């Protein structure tokens, strides 16, 4: 079976977070793919911090770099063609980018776990659920086969799979999509990780199942106190669960703030576009669903100036010429739009629904540090 980890190593997870540091700190991370067709700036200056018990929502269209960013953090991008071009990722004060592959193997699944979009293909078809669930425990915790199986049954029970003693012997194809995603969650949480990165965990599922899966992740978070990074293209999905939201466009965060700030006080036209494209049954006012026109730009030949300018209905010559930096609109709220601080511009163009609630205490809440 697996080569048991023989070297004695203090798990990073058991050490306290150093003074002044966060559980996870992503600092101006840049990762480019070097391809025949040119350099693809897939991750281009992403920064955020995360603490235990927190949930970060990462939102953007497909190709905006939200998944690649987190695969980079996990060290799951093949290098080459990928290459770290700058920045750092620190977990409990230690740089993940500087770790050896062996050290990263200790981190993955044990300290930081990840679940993926398609539960249909994310489980190995030729092994039983129990074997796959127990794999991490045997690897990171040195469990015996029997111990791992016993724990697998408990985990399945925990994520609400009926009749776990039987199901643990089943193969992935004998589970439905929603059940498989529950298995994925159980698998990710098996070693009690600090951080759970969920990459579009509900996109491939039925709407009714989606809510159950999100609810399950929240429940587990309450129980274990882990942090969650929820990656999605659907702002609606993170609306209820995220403490902070990072909106990404073309490999770059364009707006960052608390959920409240993003929903009710956003100042970036791209965020507005995302908000306008959520169909919301509870909206009191009828408003047309306005899609964002055009397609995300090629990451090889980014437009000059603001990357969103070709699709932005309000773009000016300045936008097309000059790339906007981070403009702080609140203590922990920034936006990459030249006109973020222009009150008239924001008042005139932001989605009406969020304006109407602007009176809500938008800046009152801080990032929700635990």
């Amino acid at each position, binding site marked *: 079976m*697996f080569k048991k980890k023989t070297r004695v190593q203090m798990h990073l997870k058991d050490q306290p977070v150093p003074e002044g540091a966060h559980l996870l700190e992503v600092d101006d991370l840049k990762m480019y793919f070097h391809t025949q067709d040119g350099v693809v700036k897939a991750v281009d200056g992403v920064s955020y911090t995360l603490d235990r018990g927190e949930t970060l929502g990462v939102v953007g269209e497909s190709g905006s770099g939200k998944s690649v960013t987190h695969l980079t953090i996990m060290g799951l991008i093949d290098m080459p063609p990928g290459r770290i071009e700058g920045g750092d990722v620190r977990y409990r004060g230690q740089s993940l980018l500087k770790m050896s592959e062996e050290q990263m193997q200790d981190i993955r699944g044990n300290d930081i776990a990840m679940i993926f979009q398609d539960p249909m*293909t*994310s489980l190995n078809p030729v092994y039983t659920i129990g074997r796959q669930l127990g794999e991490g425990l045997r*690897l990171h915790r040195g469990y015996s086969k029997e111990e791992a199986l016993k724990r697998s049954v408990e985990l399945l029970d925990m994520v609400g799979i009926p009749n776990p003693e039987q199901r643990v012997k089943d193969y992935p*194809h004998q589970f439905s999509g929603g059940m498989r995603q529950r298995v994925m969650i159980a698998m990710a949480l098996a070693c009690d990780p600090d951080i759970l990165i969920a990459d579009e965990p509900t996109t491939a599922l039925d709407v009714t199942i989606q809510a159950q899966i999100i609810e399950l992740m929240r429940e587990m978070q309450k129980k274990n106190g882990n942090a969650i990074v929820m990656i999605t293209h659907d702002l609606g999905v993170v609306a209820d669960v995220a403490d902070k939201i990072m909106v990404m466009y073309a490999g770059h965060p364009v707006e960052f703030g608390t959920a409240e700030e993003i929903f009710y006080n956003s100042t970036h036209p791209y965020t507005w576009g995302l908000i306008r494209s959520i169909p919301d049954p509870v909206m009191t006012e009828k408003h047309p669903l306005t899609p964002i026109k055009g397609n995300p730009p090629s990451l090889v030949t980014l437009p000059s100036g603001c990357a969103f300018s070709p699709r932005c209905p309000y773009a000016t010559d300045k936008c097309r010429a000059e790339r906007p930096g981070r403009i702080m609109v609140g203590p922990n709220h920034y936006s990459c739009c030249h006109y973020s601080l222009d009150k008239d511009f924001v008042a005139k163009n932001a989605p009406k629904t969020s304006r109407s609630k602007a009176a809500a205490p938008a800046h009152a809440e801080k990032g929700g540090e635990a």
Partner: protein
Amino acid sequence: MGKYIIKRVLQFIPVFLGVTLILFSLENIVPGDPIRLIAGDKKLDPVTENNLRASFHLIETNDDGTIKYDENGNTIETPMWERYFLYVGGLLHGDLGVSYQKSGQSVSSILADKYPYTVRLAIVAIILEAVLGIGAGIVSALKRYSFWDIFVTFLSALFVSMPAFWLGMLLQLFFGVFLKDATGGAFYLPISGAGGPYAEFQDWVYYILPAFTLAAISMAYTARIMRSQLLEVMNQDYIRTAKAKGLSRKDIVIHHALKNALIPVVTYIGMDFGGLLAGAILTETVFNWPGVGYETYRAITQRDWPLVLGSVTVIVVVVMVINLIVDVSYAFLDPRIRFGAPKNER
């Protein structure tokens, strides 16, 4: 799983009937009256001739084996469909007809002597194919674009583009002639025959060149399939899941990738046993290997068509049965088939 096996066996029946029908039709279109061909220049008396015809089921017989006559005292020609069923029945009992040339010796008795040689050769070849082909494919995939990858890709392109019998001759030339001359006769490999009839241990050197020749093409395909399967599997989502769990590359390859990638490769190798038996005709001819293949070649040169068709028939039936076994054993390898998963999830 039972359902899957039953389905496979049921699918096998029409294919079997179809193939035997084709063989039967071929045999019965062979130009010339078989009895005349057996007799050659000899003049047969009517009783002997009728007995021969009866033994070929060309005319009807009573249950006790005596020849049936109509009211005019003439023999009755057996209808085609009846002859087909008699043919299939005979086939199942190992009755393949009579050789033209070997003075009425039955085809099955001629082939029975030769079969062990061919089967042994094919088994050695399939081991070579599996070990070298899978090994080369794995190295190729894991060390992609390396020297080894290019070497394996290049060699497999050559192997599938050259006639296997020509490769056999090149090997004979190098290992049997050139090497013998260069080492003054100290080291060389035998290039003709199978050693003794009992496949004793010291005979193994006789197997090297023919088995390699026989395996060469399949080996190339095995390496290609193994390489592409492994590369494909390594791109699957569940491999990413395993990586995200913290497994090392080695563990991922051994525990997660290989089992999935091997399923189609093992199927290919199993299915290929038949191809090897078919290829044996050429290989055995080159190496004077005393098996079914060489016998078939001799029969071709002597225009002994019943013997040619007989050995083709045997090989074809063996191939079909092996394919059925491989198909069924697939179920044991792949849980998705074992438990009847819908096709789109495989």
